[in-house]
């Protein structure tokens, strides 16, 4: 396992900048999620780390070594692809063993073995030919039919293989045992093959696909294919796992199941993992840390809790959380001795907690953000509440999403536990939870900190 560092990494496709100045430090055994809308550069970042894409500017380090010019196979990292990318002509066993076999140090042994096998069959063919040529030649009408005997050689070998199909196996073993007497690399190859066997055994047990070992990918279900793809990454015990939306091809139920399984697996393996997804729920549930990317720029890097509670800008605030955060444009003005957020549809008295931070933004445009789950709906008036009407009700079982209409066509979504008893067009009182408000600067879209000043994404 290893530590991975992105230093000012930029990727350009011609004029287009896919990733801009990405700075990221991933600790050993950490699970980092790259999340963002499509086209934000998250997959490109991953591919740069994998070595499948060249790095335009900046440096990527694995274990303090700069890997910019190291080919993918020498970086010792494994990748799980969105499309699984299993080898369709191999069985599950061979799919899993492929990575290990490719990294064998005794590659010459395979060459020697196949050459010996070809020679062996050639000798048999020649023997057949010679037999026909010199023994059968005494039969008068067969005299001088050289070409016939040539085919007889080939026919003889094929005949042998058909009559005794097991013989292929035996000949293979014979050649191995014969070759290992004078070539050490063949012995090593055998040792490695036994090791590979052990590793495949372990991996399939870990993933629960023992019964599928000799099947080909097209005989597997989506979940099993996904497991094989994961297994192919795990089996090599690489420095880091890269996962490029591995769950996005599964159906909703299986995705949740696999998500939990993946979490269990990564906890067990304690591997450095970089996980790319467009699904913020996956990112929140899986990641130790989340990197929110937009248009090639890392907007925020932090733990799920940080990203959720203190989003650095309006994009992060809107992207993380479901349903997404409600935003209202407005101004902060002095009124009745206190400070009030004044929008076209309502005025809201700002709680004490935010007063210090807000000071610099009096009489300036700001954006108020409030998450649906932090809105309380009541029929009776409470302290600092606003009046609105119910627009739409969306019960999803455990919760109900309530669309609240304020005057001047401002709409908000609130999340209410259970099945809400409200009716459409009912007049209600809306209360925001005092300590869960977010204020953003309308110009820079950055978060206004409660201490004062605005957040800095470069931090």
């Amino acid at each position, binding site marked *: 396992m290893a530590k991975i560092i992105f230093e000012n990494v930029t990727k350009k496709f011609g004029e287009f900048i896919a990733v801009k100045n990405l700075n990221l430090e991933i600790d050993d055994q950490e699970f980092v999620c790259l999340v963002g809308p499509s086209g934000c550069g998250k997959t490109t970042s991953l591919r740069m780390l994998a070595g499948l894409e060249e790095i335009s500017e900046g440096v990527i380090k694995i274990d303090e070594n700069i890997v910019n010019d190291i080919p993918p196979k020498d970086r010792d990292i494994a990748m799980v692809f969105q499309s699984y*990318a299993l080898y369709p002509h191999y069985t599950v066993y061979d799919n899993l063993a492929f990575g290990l076999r490719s990294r064998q140090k005794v590659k010459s042994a395979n060459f020697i073995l196949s050459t010996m096998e070809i020679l062996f069959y050639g000798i048999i063919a020649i023997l057949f030919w010679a037999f026909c040529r010199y023994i059968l030649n005494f039969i008068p009408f067969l005299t001088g039919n050289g070409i016939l005997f040539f085919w007889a050689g080939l026919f003889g070998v094929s005949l042998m293989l058909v009559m005794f199909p097991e013989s292929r196996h035996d000949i293979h073993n014979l050649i191995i045992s014969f070759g290992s007497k004078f070539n050490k690399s063949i012995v090593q190859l055998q040792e490695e093959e*036994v090791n590979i066997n052990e590793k495949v055994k372990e991996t399939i047990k870990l993933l629960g696909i023992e019964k599928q070992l000799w099947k*080909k990918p097209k005989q597997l279900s989506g979940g099993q294919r996904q497991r094989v793809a994961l297994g192919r990454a795990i089996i090599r015990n690489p420095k880091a796992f890269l996962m490029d939306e591995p769950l996005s091809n599964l159906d909703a139920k299986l995705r949740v199941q696999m998500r939990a399984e993946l979490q269990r697996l990564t906890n067990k393996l304690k591997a450095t993992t970089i996980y790319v997804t467009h699904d913020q729920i996956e990112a929140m549930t899986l990641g130790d840390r989340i990197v929110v990317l937009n248009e090639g720029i890392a907007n925020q890097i932090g733990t799920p809790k940080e990203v959720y509670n203190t989003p650095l800008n309006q994009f992060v605030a809107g992207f993380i959380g479901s349903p997404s955060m409600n935003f209202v444009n407005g101004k902060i003005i002095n009124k009745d001795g206190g400070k009030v957020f004044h929008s076209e549809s309502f005025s809201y008295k700002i709680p004490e907690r935010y007063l210090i931070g807000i000071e610099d933004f009096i009489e300036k445009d700001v954006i108020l953000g409030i998450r649906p789950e932090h809105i309380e709906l009541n029929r009776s008036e409470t302290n600092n509440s606003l009046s609105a009407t119910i627009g739409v009700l969306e019960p999803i079982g455990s919760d109900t999403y309530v669309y609240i209409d304020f005057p001047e066509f401002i709409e908000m979504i609130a999340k209410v536990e259970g099945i809400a008893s409200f009716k459409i067009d009912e007049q209600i009182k809306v209360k925001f939870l005092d300590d869960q408000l977010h204020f953003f600067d309308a110009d820079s879209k950055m978060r206004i900190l409660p201490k004062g000043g605005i957040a800095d994404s470069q931090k």
Partner: protein
Amino acid sequence: MTEKNLVITEKNDNFLTLEPEKTSKENIFLIIAIFGFILLFISWYQIESLLWNRIRYTTGSGWVSVAPIYQNTSLTDMRYMITSYLVMYLLGILCNFVIVAFLLKIIMIDKIWNEKVKKLTVVLSISSGLTSITGFWLFNSIWVIEGIKLITDTGQPGYDWVRIDIGDLSQFIFIIGIIISIIFFILTILTIIFLIGNREKKAAKPGMKQNVGDVIRNILLNIPFYLVLIFYLIFTLLPVYLTLKISISTFSGVSTAEVKEPIKALIINYSSVIFSVSKDETQFGSAFLRSIFLGIGTGTIGLIVAVSAAYALARFKFRGNKFFTFLIISTQMFPGLILLIPQYIIWSTLGLLEEKVVILGVLLASSTGATAYCTWMMKGYFETIPIDIEEASIMDGAGKVGTFVKIALPLVKSGMVAVLLFTLITSWQDFVLARTFIQAETKQTLPLLFYNYQNMATSDAPVYFDLVAPYSIIVALPIVTFFMLLQKTLAVGAVAGGIK
């Protein structure tokens, strides 16, 4: 650890035994069957040509008969001939056994090899063997009878022993042979149908049963569709039908061809093509082998060059990639014939047109022509492989060469087969190149031999349709066989299952 322990030999440990793939077994059976057929054909040809090399076409008449050879055949020759038939058909039995075993393997692929199946195999192989033997007698006796008939008809002196000793016997064997072979043939077919039927019954789900009403309705609904298909079939199959009809008819002419005594006509027409030696000493068999060599050689060389070039063009980004692709396609944009004379001059300067190496010269010329098209086709096939699979292999540490050999090549197998077939057909029927390059009369290929039939034309018979028709069918057979064998490979999508 001793060396013995290191070798993976424990067959009981299912895990350690790398299971041989079922498909490769099937392939071996196919290979055997093909070899068997080739062997059968060649042995047949070799033996026959040795004994019968005095046969000439009687170019004056429309009829070309091989039967008069009996007039000049000595007793010893006759015995040799019969012995050779016997050997040949013993080999035939072997091949038959292999073919039956192959069929059984396909059918039994998912079943356990139990006692019942064992018995069936024995029955099948015996029946096929008997079919071969009876087929031998059938074939042989027809020859003999024909020979006798001709001798008696023409009143020319023949050998009396033929009529007395073998003639009667062969007629007897002939009838018995026909009966036995028909019975065993039906038995074989029935058994195979029984086996296949059993398999399908098991595979079908109980809910899939259709009522009779549904079936009838489906048929009725499909009638217009069938009508169109039938109409189309008539047009496409009419030439094939005519060729087949002429090849077994006794009159040389398209409109006047009549099927009288089809077996006799079939034997005489086809044997005239296969066994006879043409005017310029070119034997059909050697021309056949030469053409096979050219076809397979062109295909192999074209494929080896094309596959590597196409992979580079499809997968590697380098300066001038598109330009090179255009260059390759541009070679297909002008007629290849205009290169013929320059090629001829170059080839003759290089000494590639001398009699000993002229076939290699033709091979070189035809494969250079085929390579460009193959590259273009293979490039398309390589582009169908999802790049993810190759990237996964690169991440797994296979490197670029490893990815090409272990991942990309197996996945374009169907493309390779298509390209191979294409080049094989092109060179199989190539006439202009061969005609220009090959001057030696002993080095003719099949299309050139065909041309010689035209040369034999006289005012009485402008075209020997009774030679041309069987010739066309014999020449078409290998290609048709290839197509039928490789059809499965062509149809199956290779990448299925690898990605979502």
